[in-house]
C-alpha cells in the first residue's frame, strides 16, 4: 500500500510550510480524503503514528491527524440528477446511461494545520 509514502509527502508538505512560518510545534493536521482517492484513512493513520516520531521536534505524541472524509458525488449530464455513485462511477441510476460526471470524492488535500511559534502564538 502507498499510504506510507503519501504520509511522508504530507509530513514534508506541513514541515516545509511550518518552517517557513517559524512554527516550531504542530498540534493538529486536518486532511481531506475522498472516497474515490484510493487512500485508506486507517492506513494513513497507521503511517502517521509510525512516522510521527521521526519528524524532528515539530511533531510529538500529541500531534493529531484529523481525517475528514469527502463523499463521492456524481451528476448526470443528461437529467442533472445528483447521486452517490457505486463502483459504476459514470452510471446514472435514473437515465441508466454512463453519462455522469464526478463532482467530488477524489480529493486528497491538507486543508489546514494548527501550530505555535517560539512565543507560543
Amino acid at each position: 500500500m502507498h499510504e506510507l509514502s503519501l504520509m511522508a509527502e504530507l509530513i514534508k508538505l506541513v514541515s516545509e510550510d511550518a518552517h517557513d512560518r517559524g512554527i516550531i510545534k504542530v498540534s493538529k493536521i486536518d486532511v481531506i480524503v475522498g472516497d474515490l482517492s484510493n487512500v485508506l484513512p486507517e492506513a494513513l493513520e497507521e503511517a502517521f503514528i509510525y512516522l510521527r516520531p521521526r519528524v524532528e521536534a515539530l511533531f510529538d505524541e500529541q500531534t493529531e491527524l484529523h481525517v475528514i472524509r469527502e463523499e463521492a458525488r456524481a451528476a448526470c449530464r443528461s437529467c442533472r440528477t445528483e447521486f452517490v455513485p457505486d463502483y459504476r462511477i459514470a452510471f446514472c441510476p435514473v437515465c441508466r446511461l454512463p453519462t455522469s460526471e464526478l463532482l467530488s470524492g477524489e480529493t486528497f488535500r491538507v486543508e489546514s494545520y494548527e501550530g505555535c511559534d517560539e512565543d507560543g502564538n
Partner: protein
Amino acid sequence: MEINLKEEVLKDQNKAAAFNRKLFQDSRTLVINIMSSPGAGKTTLLEATVKALAREYKIGVIEGDLATERDADRLRALGVDTVQINTVGGCHLDARMIAKKLPEFDLEKTDILFIENIGNLVCPSGYDLGQHFKVVVLSVPEGNDKIPKYPIMFRRTDMTLINKIDLLPYVPFNLVEAAEDLKSINPEALFKPVSALTGDRMGEWTGWIREVYHTCLAR
C-alpha cells in the same frame, strides 16, 4: 495559530509530472504509462510492440520493478534503450523517479517512451508521470470482475487492453461484460482485446499508437 494550507498532498509529485510533460512535449516524445497487476503480460506486450514498431520509431523503455533487471534485459535483448528502476519494495512509480532517469535517454531522438509501471492495480493509478496516455492491461485469466473490483484504476486510464485472448476458450472471461463494466466506470476509455503472445489483434493496438503519435505530437 491555524494555517489554512489547502495544498494537494501530491503537490511536489504533480510538479515533477508537469516538468516531465513539458520535456516530452518539447522533445516530441510520445509517452505511454502501462499498468496492470503482476503477470498480466506487460513485458510480453512491450516485446511484441517493440518488434512491430522498431523499424518506424526510435523506442525507449523505463522498466519498474521491486527488484532485478530481468524485464529490462528482455527488452535490451531486442536492442531497445531500457532503464530499470528498482523501487525496493515501493508499490508504484512516481514522477520524480521518472525525472531522475530521463537524462539516461536521448529524448530528442526518442520517438516513443513506454513506462512499465509496478505490477499493482491500486497504487500506480494515483501518480501522474507526465505521460500522454495511461493504459491498463487486464489479462483473461484474472477474470473480468477485476474491472468493477478496481474501479479507480479503470476510471483513471485512457485504455483497457485485454491481454491473453488466446486463453478465452479455456478460462471464464466475459468480454461483453468487461466492455459494459468499463463503459459504466469510464465511458471515454478505449477497450482493446489482444494476445501479445500470438499476435492476435495486436495490429489494433500498434495502429492506435501510430495514430496518437501523429495526433499528439503534431505542431
